[in-house]
């Protein structure tokens, strides 16, 4: 009976794409509903003269958030540890896992593109700024914004041309979160236990540190967290090319509240951070795949 062959990878990817789309139907419908509500709100805002929607693809964390949640939906019924139906099918486990992961990613990219197009259309309708040249206010690097009021003369004004590469941010950030969460979902028999366990451990360590009156602990932990999240190659660099964390509000000495930038985001920071975190995700994924491999 050796004339029977397993299906090709193309056939498997095609079927997984269709099946994954089917399984995500309900979430896509919910998302569509939310978009409708958001559209309604944005248009009423515009009509009431409260300004248009700004098209800043790098600012929306929604695709990245979706990328983090998607693996849970994708692997919900096909957990790798055990004899779930997917693994009884005649295809190598590792390649099968990759095919299913790819199928989910394809839907993620489609959803991200749809989201972006919707945002663009909304911005056009409401005559919002479409990533055009922006006049931004910059703080000198020596000043750290705080409740302390600021001398207006310290604020520089300049024109910033947002690089078109920022349009890619939703796709790269979503891919990075998708890879990382997929690695966790596939790598551990009980991923939630690991996540909760890590969180609990951190709190335990903090409690111990605090209990030991180690006053250096909290600030040190804070600095580590800060670097991890908002550093040059931190999480925010991946999620928003740092446009989120570099932007802040200050109160001027004349009691005026303005939005300023601590520094302008650099594309190179974004690229390196994306590569860094995506590599971490891929490494985790390889480890998870190895754990679940078919052959000895």
């Amino acid at each position, binding site marked *: 009976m*050796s004339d029977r*062959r*397993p299906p090709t990878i193309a056939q498997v990817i095609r079927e997984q794409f269709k099946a994954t789309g089917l*399984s995500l139907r309900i979430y896509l419908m919910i998302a569509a509903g939310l978009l409708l509500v958001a559209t309604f709100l944005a248009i009423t805002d515009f009509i009431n003269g409260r300004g248009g929607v700004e098209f800043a693809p790098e600012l929306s964390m929604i695709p990245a958030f979706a990328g983090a949640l998607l693996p849970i939906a994708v692997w919900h*019924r096909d957990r790798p540890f055990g*004899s779930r*139906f997917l693994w009884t099918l005649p295809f190598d486990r590792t390649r099968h896992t990759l095919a299913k992961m790819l199928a989910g990613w394809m839907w993620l990219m489609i959803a991200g593109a749809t989201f972006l197009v919707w945002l663009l259309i909304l911005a056009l309708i409401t005559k919002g700024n479409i990533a055009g040249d922006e006049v931004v206010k910059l703080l000198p690097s020596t000043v750290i914004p705080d409740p302390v009021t600021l001398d207006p003369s310290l604020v520089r004004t300049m024109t910033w041309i947002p690089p078109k590469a920022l349009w890619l941010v939703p796709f790269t950030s979503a891919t990075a979160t998708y890879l990382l969460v997929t690695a966790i979902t596939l790598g551990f028999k009980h991923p939630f236990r690991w996540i909760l366990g890590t969180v609990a451990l951190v709190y335990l360590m903090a409690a111990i540190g605090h209990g030991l009156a180690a006053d250096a602990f909290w600030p040190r932990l804070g600095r580590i967290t800060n670097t991890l999240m908002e550093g040059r190659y931190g999480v925010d660099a991946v999620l928003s090319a740092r446009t989120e964390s570099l932007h802040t509000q200050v109160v001027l000495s004349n009691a005026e509240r303005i939005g300023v930038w601590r520094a302008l985001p650099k594309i190179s920071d974004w690229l390196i951070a994306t590569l860094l975190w995506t590599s971490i995700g891929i490494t985790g994924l390889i480890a998870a795949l190895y754990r679940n491999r*078919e052959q000895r």
Partner: protein
Amino acid sequence: MTTTNATALAVETTNLVKHYGDQVALDSVSFNVPEGSVYVLVGANGAGKSTTFKILLNLERPTSGDAKVFGLRTDANGPQARVQIGYVPEQQESPYPWMTSGRLLEYVAAYYPSWDAAYAAHLVKSLNIRTGKKSGTLSKGELRRLQLAMAMAHRPPLLLLDEPTEGLDIIARKQALSLLAEHLADSPTTVIIATHHVHEVDSLTDYVGVLKEGKLQAQMQRDELRKFVATQRPNDTRPLSLEDAIATLLSEETSR
């Protein structure tokens, strides 16, 4: 790898051992299932029947020993072994409850190039499967019938059926087994049935494998087994059914 048998073996395990932690699921089991035969695997729950199937599908790796399907080692040739197997698992739950029965059949069809669409349609009709119904809303019996169709439609040379008639009413049970007999007439198939209901597969049985606590107590042809048990109790001349013989064998081992 020489065999003195003229008949090729569809499934052959050699001193197969499987441990789950310190629990012994299979203890040096050597199955021999000739091609084209119906092999009935009996034993209490937890005796090792489902574990055997999982190893043949390479869902689990042997702790030691090996398992071969049509001469291929299952742990080294998982996908190639599985493409020749139609499997009905013990669990009666849909893998994807949101998929309709029809969609599930399409899903499986994509994975088996030998899928016979016309035969699948015939099975759907014979087994009264409602293709438009969401598979998560099917009754246990309907789901079992769907699982049977999914396993048989690609005409695999080996069928592994774990309690195939579970959840089916009396009429449906007879229908399903008759359908299986017809299937055997149309396609050369080896069947391994793990079941508690020996009486309903009695006449279908060619070989019996009796598992107890992970050990293969007996592996014989249907008539040989009955003769064997009968000779063990010469004073009792009552004619023995297969079920009686197996029950006697299992209880004898306990009393020893």
